């Protein structure tokens, strides 16, 4: 028996019925056609499916679509497009933080989650924050550099008044 859910994905509200066993990742990929979110394993190990749920990173293979009822989801397509790249996307490009690109959407979403919580992370904090995401191509070094690069760019771009109360850079 199908369940009715209402979920906002990349700013657009969707209301409809889903199978109770449908995982969030397959709802995004198959029902909404948002194929930027990838599936790399069946044990919640690889993080290729990472999306933001109400602003926090989650592995969308570990949630049922019905659990996203009433929530707001941001996928890689909602982070930025080619004409309006998010600073994290730009940094991955500039620092060669990807090769095959399959882990990249999840990796970028995890980095976004980190940088909104911690705008000036240490290298150890970056490595810990992306440790739920596996990359087989890069050896992670350029991913770490990309996150550092994005953090610096985002701090520089943020007007000083918005940083009142935030930790000093």
């Amino acid at each position, binding site marked *: 028996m199908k369940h009715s859910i209402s979920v906002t994905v990349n700013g657009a509200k969707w209301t409809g019925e889903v199978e109770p066993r449908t995982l969030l990742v397959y709802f995004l990929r198959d029902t909404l056609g948002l194929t930027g979110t990838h599936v790399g394993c069946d044990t919640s*190990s690889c993080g290729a499916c990472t999306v933001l749920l109400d602003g926090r990173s989650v592995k969308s293979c570990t949630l049922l679509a019905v659990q996203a009822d009433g929530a707001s989801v941001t996928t890689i397509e909602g982070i930025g497009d080619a004409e309006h790249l998010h600073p994290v996307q730009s940094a*991955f490009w500039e620092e060669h933080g990807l090769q*095959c690109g399959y882990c990249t959407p999840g990796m970028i979403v995890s980095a976004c989650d980190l940088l909104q919580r911690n705008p000036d992370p240490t290298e150890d904090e970056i490595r*810990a924050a992306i440790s739920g995401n596996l990359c*087989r191509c890069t050896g992670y070094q350029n991913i770490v550099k990309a996150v550092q690069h994005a953090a610096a760019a985002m701090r520089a771009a943020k007007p000083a008044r918005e940083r009142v109360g935030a930790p000093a850079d």
Partner: protein
Amino acid sequence: MAFTSMMGARVTRREDPRLITGRSTYVDDVKLAGMTYAAFARSPFAHARIVRVDVSAAQAAPGVLAVFTADDLRDVGDVPTAPQIEGLKVPKHPPLARGRVAHVGEPVVAVVASTPEEANDAAELVDVEYEELPAVVDLERALKGAPYVHDEFGTNVAYTMEVNSGDVEAAFANAAVTVSERLLNQRVAPVSIEPRGMVAHWEPGPAHLTLWSSTQIPHLLRTQMALALKVPEQRVRTIAPDVGGGFGSKLDVYAEEITAAFASRALGRPVKYVETRSESFMSTVHGRDQIDFIDVAAQRDGRITGLKVEILANLGAYHQLLTPAIPTLTLLMVPGAYDLQSVSVKLHGLFTTEAPTDAYRGAGRPEATFLIERAIDLVAAKLALDPAEVRRRNLIRKEQFPYASAMGLTYDSGDYHAALEKALRIAGYDTLRKEQARARDEGRLFGIGLSSYVEVCGMGPSSALPAPGWGSATVRVEPTGGVTVMTGASPHGQGEETTFAQMVAERLGVPIDDVVVLHGDSAVVQYGIGTFGSRSTAVDGAALYNALETVREKALKIAAHQMEANVGDLEFKNGKISVKGNPEKSMSTAEVAFAAFRGVNLPADVEPGLEATRRFEPPNFVYPFGTHVCVVEIERATGAVKVVKYVAVDDCGNVINPMIVEGQVHGGIAQGLAQALYEEIVYDENGQLATGSLLQYTVPHANQVPNYELDRTVTPTDVNPMGIKGVGEAGTIGATPAVVNAVVDALAPFGVVNVDMPCKPERIWRIVNGHDGKANGKAAVS
């Protein structure tokens, strides 16, 4: 090749915008009207006779469109294997098991349904009665005799190969010292983050079969699909869309591809199958898996004079595309970077009831490098010499190139000592040794490991391979001046859409934004051999170089005719063809292309169009080399290894894009380090896979690997016109022994001279705490 602004530049990648925005198309993103989904019922046993297959419940399940068994596929060809090795035993390998199964995860029945969920549910209802047979999982026992994986052969030995060079017996008779060791090179899994997948679509039309596949070899796959399904090759179209990593595991033709195509023909609808990660661990090829017995003869000064190697190579249950060929690369590279002419090697390729092994990043060369680099350290330990000094005394000297190796190869070019010295200098080797002495005084376990590797790649001369080894490229200058390249390489992360565009921009003087590089679609691209064996830039790049030369020559002829000048007076300069000494008199590449397209006022012997297709047959392999230095510290309480420094000096000849080269080395080192410290595929004594998911199989996370300090030396090759060697596998080949040598060095105070991979905490804790069954332990260090 003249290096100007574009060549050698850190150009950001042209493939990235689609990848960083989620607008890429991997095979699982392909959607077709009427799509159906396949699932496979797989063997739960390592070895069994199939007594009965009952698919009635699966057929009756909701959404099921068809169920296929080996009987349905009886007219379909076997899963193909390419190597032609004398005396090679080739077992039958039907896409769906016929009568028996020989490894856990072997596909037995295929179910096709309207949704993936229905297909998976129905596959669970397939009822197969098995009569279990004994598993064969121990290589040394497999060599000795029964039980056999394939009874029809009366042996588990698929082939034996032997090479003897020089006078090995004299070397051992005259040796000052000898060392012997049994080295384990454990089975590992490639684990591209994108699992294998395919969509097969059979329909009337010019292509009867279109197969999207996450493959590294779209054209070879096309040929093999045509043969297996008995469909004319011109009626098969293969497409490698964006492919999420391969590392050799997608350099293959798989049972599921043949079955999906067959199912699509039977149903008249497209069929999609994407393996789960658990299925991937069971049925995608694994890599490595050798036991190597080495005996080394050396003089007192550390000069190695003789080497005997016996290789037991685990081929698994069946031959995939290149399975039996992989260990032969180990055999060929046994002497490594050392001037060592008295060598004997005996290789046994062995069947076991495990998943087939095949190419995995490095493919046979990491095993060779591991055994010779361990051998060097064993000799150094035996003679109490510095391992760096032993390398110095044995490395091939630069004046010896081209070097004829004991195994019959010709190493093209090198300066191995320069790479060694540069790596030692960057690492601060002498300081590190002092730091080690201090650490040992404090009771800390601090180790320094070296690896001076050479590898054979740029696969390669066709005569030396089980498949063609040439490269191909088409360059088409469009009427409006832009350039389209069609490459026979099939990049899946290596960045040739960028490096090849750099070559075009350099040679034709056009802006890089005016170049597009197409690959991976057999309907678009001339036959190409694909991407593997660090061959794309060295071989397909060379074909591109030659195609660009042909286009340049034609452009000069047309420009000379149009400007009423002599060809010899013209030059390519600043994006134009100009008369030497009179730059005012010039035509842009776009003007020449339009003139060639317009077809008016061309020289009499020149056809319209500005386009060339060239193929490049490499006269030899290329031989990248380098030295890696790894420094580790081991935590006594847990046995955990921490890499505190990693320096790699690699030489891959001339470089088009250093950013991409560094990325290849980073990833390569991470995979080599992962084999040294973390990863192993484990089958238990019943042949059950104990590491069947990413929970048990420990691909390292970001906080388990270090930063790498990279540098290069540059020794061009004359094998191709650009002087380029490959770099895709070098990091992996160099890294594993550097890390293990560091771990062994850290444990030297315990009398340890070898540690089996992976050097995991438990194994090391037992050594450090005297629980490894040997008499050493705590007492060895005060």
